[in-house]
């Protein structure tokens, strides 16, 4: 029976021993050990989180790079396109100007030719008039001397000279 009857003395010593053990271990063992364990776990968690963050940043950076590259490519493309356009425009403009100039020159030349022609015609007319007067003079003179001769002269002269 006394196997299952708690002995007061042992209860007393167990209680005291246990409370002392609890106090000492709590203060000098559990606190530092649990503290260290949880500090390390926090550390690991933080490290993982920052690694994840770094990875994310890296990805972002890569995406940025990609984007910038894309933009640069697009810009280059645009610039090239612009340049081509400008060149074409320039060429077109130059051609147009040249055309214009050429046509002006041609116009001028035609105008000059026309005026020269007119002047030449006028001169010719005056020449022909002069000649006609000369001829007329000579004809008159010849007629005046010999009627046949005069006629023949007029005919010759007319045969020689063709009016244009």
């Amino acid at each position, binding site marked *: 029976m*006394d*196997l*299952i*009857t*708690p*002995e*007061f*003395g*042992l*209860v*007393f*010593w*167990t*209680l005291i*021993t*246990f409370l*002392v*053990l*609890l106090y*000492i*271990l*709590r203060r*000098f*063992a*559990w*606190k*530092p*050990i*649990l*503290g*260290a*364990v949880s*500090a*390390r776990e926090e*550390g690991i968690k933080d490290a993982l989180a920052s690694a994840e963050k770094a990875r994310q940043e890296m990805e972002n950076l890569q995406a940025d790079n990609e984007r910038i590259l894309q933009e640069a490519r697009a810009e280059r493309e645009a610039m090239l396109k612009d340049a081509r356009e400008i060149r074409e425009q320039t060429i077109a403009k130059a051609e147009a100007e040249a055309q214009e100039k050429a046509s002006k020159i041609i116009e001028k030349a035609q105008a000059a030719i026309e005026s020269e022609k007119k002047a030449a015609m006028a001169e010719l007319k005056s020449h022909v008039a002069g000649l006609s007067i000369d001829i007329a003079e000579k004809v008159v003179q010849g007629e005046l001397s010999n009627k046949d001769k005069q006629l023949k002269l007029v005919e010759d002269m007319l045969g020689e000279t063709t009016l244009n």
Partner: protein
Amino acid sequence: MTLNTFRNLVLAALFLSFSFIGFAKDSGEEGEKFDPKEMILHHVKDAYGMHIATLNEGKENELHITIPLPVIVYTDKGLTVFSSSAFHHDYHGHEIVERNGQKFVNVHEKVYVLDEGVSEVSYDEEGHPTNAHRPTLDLSITRNVFMMWVSIAVLLLIFLSAARRYKKADNYVPSGIAGFVEPLVVFVRDEIAKPMIGEHKYKRYMPYLLTIFFFIWINNIFGLIPVLNGANVSGNIAFTFTLAAITFIITTFSGNKHYWQHIFWMPGVPVPMKIFLMPIEIIGMFVKPISLMIRLFANITAGHVIILALMSLIFVFKTVAMAPVSVIFSLFITVIEIVVTAIQAYIFTILSALYFGMATEEAHH
């Protein structure tokens, strides 16, 4: 490593067996009939001295190797302290120790004070002394108390040096003994405290849970070590009673409104049911720690009793031929007991944690 452990186990079991054989011979060669029950109960119960071995038994120069421990008793004549060696290994009430004007005898490892004018103890039919009484208080440092102190010395050595390791180490990397201790501490935290009590409240109970876990475990282990196995600390009902009482007190004081409501006025059931459940819940409050107390006591004591009973077979049959059977069976039981040491410590701790968890659980209806 495994081989070494196994070899140690075998040696331990053999050693254990011999220490019992030695003891059993003690009562066998005195001419009395060998009484396994008395031998077993004597081993399982507490004693005033720490008996280690007896040399030259039954001869002239018989030598008992014993660590004498102080007997501290308080009677109506005040405090009396003397060494247990004064009893000269007698526990049948023959050796009378006179101290402080009183006569003390050791009857089955219980100190009795002889009544005035009595010079010899007389017994009734059940073997209880009739002319002697127990002292008012018996605060002797018995072998269980002694072994308990040895066990806490070992615990302190292990855990304080482990804690010091962390202080020395940079970035909290465990080294040396801390590497051995840490998985156990983390096990108690992650497998016992957190699931039973909950992520938010478990921290308050951690020191208690860790302390009972290791305190029970180490005392269970010490109970299995031969030579020291006389002390069956965790298989003593006083020990388990104290720990269970502490768990009960902590549970009761950490009980919140929800906990008490569940005991006295169960929510969510009809009124007659509430009245019916109330006494059951009140009884349950006390049954829980009592079950803790009995479970640990019975498991550890049973283990000791089985091993001792197997050893007693040799002396019951009075033949050496029985020895191999006894040794093999007790080896088998010892190996199981080694597992039981950890399991019982775990069960005590996890159930304590469960009770704390029930006491602090928040309503979630």
